């Protein structure tokens, strides 16, 4: 018995010493690793994104996640949209536009090479644009290339583009991710093995987890690039995003998933927390061909029934700007139309009664799973119940199910989604678009805009278009999606607002 007891005692004594030992060992390992990590951080950036892109070719499909990884990091266009939304030269050093607005002559930058070593020449521009506008192209913004009549390459560093009619926004559109230059040798495999002229080249893509890029040594402006390695990590869960930031696993989350968690960072000096703007208008689209939403009075009643400030407070913790039309407040042509159909439940009930729905109305709201959408839906349902409209919320998984049911088959009453493309007010005149909105006047207005090269005139027309939508409400215009960015306070150069959906890391560097 006594012996057994002693053994037991020894066991008890052993335990703490073992713990101590392992703790010491751990500390030693940490001590050895930590300085290394800090050193590596100097030229390495891990950037978090909520959604993984389906492929890495921005000229192939619409999802913004593709641009958020690739635009200006892997690929470059003739021109670029800068952080203030303005057009700047990129692969084209300069350009001239003819008097009639039909001929654009671009002088290309010399000494530019693609990641595979092939040189960038005028032929590549012709190839890229011809590919994008060919009938079998899957480019998501084919309207960019629609006015192009002919592309000529008088020499290796000159491109002359002739348009069939003047296009007011042609240069602006060429700055989009959809108009980047790809090479004939690699265009076919860009989806999985992207090759561009950007400051970083593609290393690896671990599906479901991360995309790794590294510095492209032969970049034409290599001196301006400070990072050696950039990793894009995909973390969908808002809690996990915050945990990753706090643990230092991710250095930057330019688009934090949960606005209510953003406040935690704004008081923390280790982090920079910036509330910027995206180009995303959150709209509750209506099926304008389906009764009773073909009646403008019903649509106006629904808009009158929604208190935008409640939505912004409840769905986005108070961040976000109310909108009355489909136009970004970042754009110089923006006019504030949020007061055209303000929150007015009494007027809403009157309009419903006029339209013959005095005894109420019921509709289904197909809601994607994104937090801003599902929260807004619950609030919309509660607000509309006050004006006698019963809303049944139907969770609809985005993108697959939503694209099929709402976008393609138009089988819905109301839905809610953020439209993140810049300057996309023209979607309301597109035939077969999911709103099914038909307004010849509006269509004519958009057509006029597209052939008006004069900026002041064009902006005036944009103002008219915004006003038309604000009164006709083919969709309920709710609020501008904010961009709540959080990153390590020692990081410099990330964009605070995104005039284009993007995560441009070219100018990013660590400072002390």
């Amino acid at each position, binding site marked *: 018995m006594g012996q057994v007891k002693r053994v037991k005692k020894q066991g008890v004594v052993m335990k703490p010493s073992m713990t101590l030992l392992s703790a010491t060992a751990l500390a030693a390992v940490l001590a050895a690793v930590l300085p290394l990590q800090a050193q590596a951080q100097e030229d390495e950036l891990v950037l978090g994104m909520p959604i993984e892109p389906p492929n890495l070719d921005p000229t192939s499909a619409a999802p913004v996640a593709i641009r958020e990884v690739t635009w200006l990091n892997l690929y470059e266009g003739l021109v670029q949209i800068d952080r203030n939304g303005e057009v700047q030269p990129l692969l084209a050093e300069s350009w001239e536009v003819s008097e009639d607005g039909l001929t654009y002559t671009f002088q290309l930058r010399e000494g530019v090479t693609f990641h595979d070593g092939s040189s960038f020449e005028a032929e590549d521009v012709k190839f890229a644009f011809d590919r994008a506008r060919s009938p079998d192209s899957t480019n998501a913004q084919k309207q960019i290339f629609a006015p192009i009549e002919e592309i000529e390459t008088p020499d290796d560093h000159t491109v002359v583009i002739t348009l069939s009619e003047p296009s007011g926004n042609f240069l602006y559109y060429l700055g989009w991710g959809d108009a980047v230059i790809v090479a004939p040798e690699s265009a076919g495999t860009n989806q999985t093995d992207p090759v561009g002229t950007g400051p970083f080249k593609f290393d690896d893509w671990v599906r479901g987890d991360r995309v790794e890029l590294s510095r492209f040594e032969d970049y034409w402006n290599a001196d301006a690039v400070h990072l050696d390695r950039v990793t894009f990590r995909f973390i969908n869960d808002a809690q996990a995003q915050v945990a990753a930031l706090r643990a230092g696993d991710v250095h930057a989350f330019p688009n934090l998933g949960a606005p*209510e968690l953003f406040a935690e960072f704004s008081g923390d000096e280790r982090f920079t927390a910036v509330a910027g703007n995206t180009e995303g208008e959150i709209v509750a689209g209506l099926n304008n061909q389906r009764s009773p939403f073909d009646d403008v009075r019903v649509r106006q009643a629904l808009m009158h029934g929604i208190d935008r400030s*409640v939505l912004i*407070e*409840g769905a986005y913790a108070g961040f976000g700007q109310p909108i009355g039309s489909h136009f970004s407040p970042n754009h110089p042509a923006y006019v504030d139309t949020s007061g055209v159909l303000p929150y007015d439940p009494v007027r809403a009930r009157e309009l419903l009664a006029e339209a013959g729905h005095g005894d109420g109305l019921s509709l289904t709201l197909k809601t994607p*799973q994104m937090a801003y959408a*599902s*929260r807004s839906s*619950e609030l919309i*349902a509660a607000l509309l119940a006050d004006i006698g409209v019963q809303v049944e*919320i139907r969770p609809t998984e985005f993108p697959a199910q939503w694209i099929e049911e709402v976008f393609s088959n138009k089988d819905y009453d109301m839905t809610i989604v953020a439209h993140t493309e810049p300057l996309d007010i023209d979607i309301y005149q597109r035939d077969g678009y999911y709103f099914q909105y038909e307004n010849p006047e509006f269509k004519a207005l958009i057509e006029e805009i597209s052939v008006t090269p004069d900026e002041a005139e064009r902006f005036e027309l944009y103002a008219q278009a915004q006003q038309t939508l604000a009164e006709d409400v083919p969709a309920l215009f709710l609020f501008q999606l904010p961009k709540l960015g959080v990153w390590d306070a020692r990081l410099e150069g990330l964009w605070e607002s995104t005039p284009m959906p993007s995560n441009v890391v070219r100018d990013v560097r660590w400072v002390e």
Partner: protein
Amino acid sequence: MTALRTVVRHPTLNLGGLVTLLLLGTAVVSQVWTPASPTQIQITQRLAPPLQAGLLGADHFGRDLTSLLMVGAWNSLSIAFVAVLLGMAGGVLLGTLAAAWRGWAEEVVMRLADVTFAFPAVLSAIMIAALIGPGATTAVIAIGVFNIPVFARVSRAAALQVWERDFVLAARSAGKGPVLITLHHVLPNIAGLLVVQATIQLALAILAEAGLSFLGVGMPPPHPSWGRMLSDAQTYLSQAPHLAILPGLAIALAVLGLNMLGDGLRDIIDPKLRRKR
């Protein structure tokens, strides 16, 4: 007299019964009265802690948490109840038939039960949700299907014992068929056991329902649901911990109460177990 005394003196049973009664009462009351409308949004009350807005505070839309929890109890209980009833009906039918006929019928039923048992309720719910979309029906079917093998096993095992008894032998020799014997002799004799099992399954079903709502395949908003309240509360944990604690507590209490009730009932109904104590 002694039976009554056992009931009165059984603390687990009493406590479990009390909690369950409270839960049932809350659920029923919620159908006729709540302190406020559970869908009424008052954005100024957003994230208000308990006692500052209503008894238990307000959620991230400023809705009254007390009312949400009360209606949540009804939704949770009704889904769990229907699902268990469904599972019990199917399971008892299969189990007693397997016991009555034996042979290949029994083999088929029991192996099918094994296969179903191997699928977690959550997995089957997600599969069903993919087919017919998320909703109360999805939750009921998924949890119900998961309950069938449980009841099939329990009722078969109990029924087999009854089949060995002398009075069944007597009935058989009197020319009664297996269906009649099952109805007249087997079912009354295993009913108590089934009630015990059902109480425990009810607790599990509430837990499963909360899990499904948490994952977004339960009752859609704006119907209040404990599981979804928990899921919504995640990102507010540091600002408003009561949003997570209260529905969590409700789920825990409901499950604990039903489990205790089930344990207590078993002690009383199963005499063999009682004698052992």
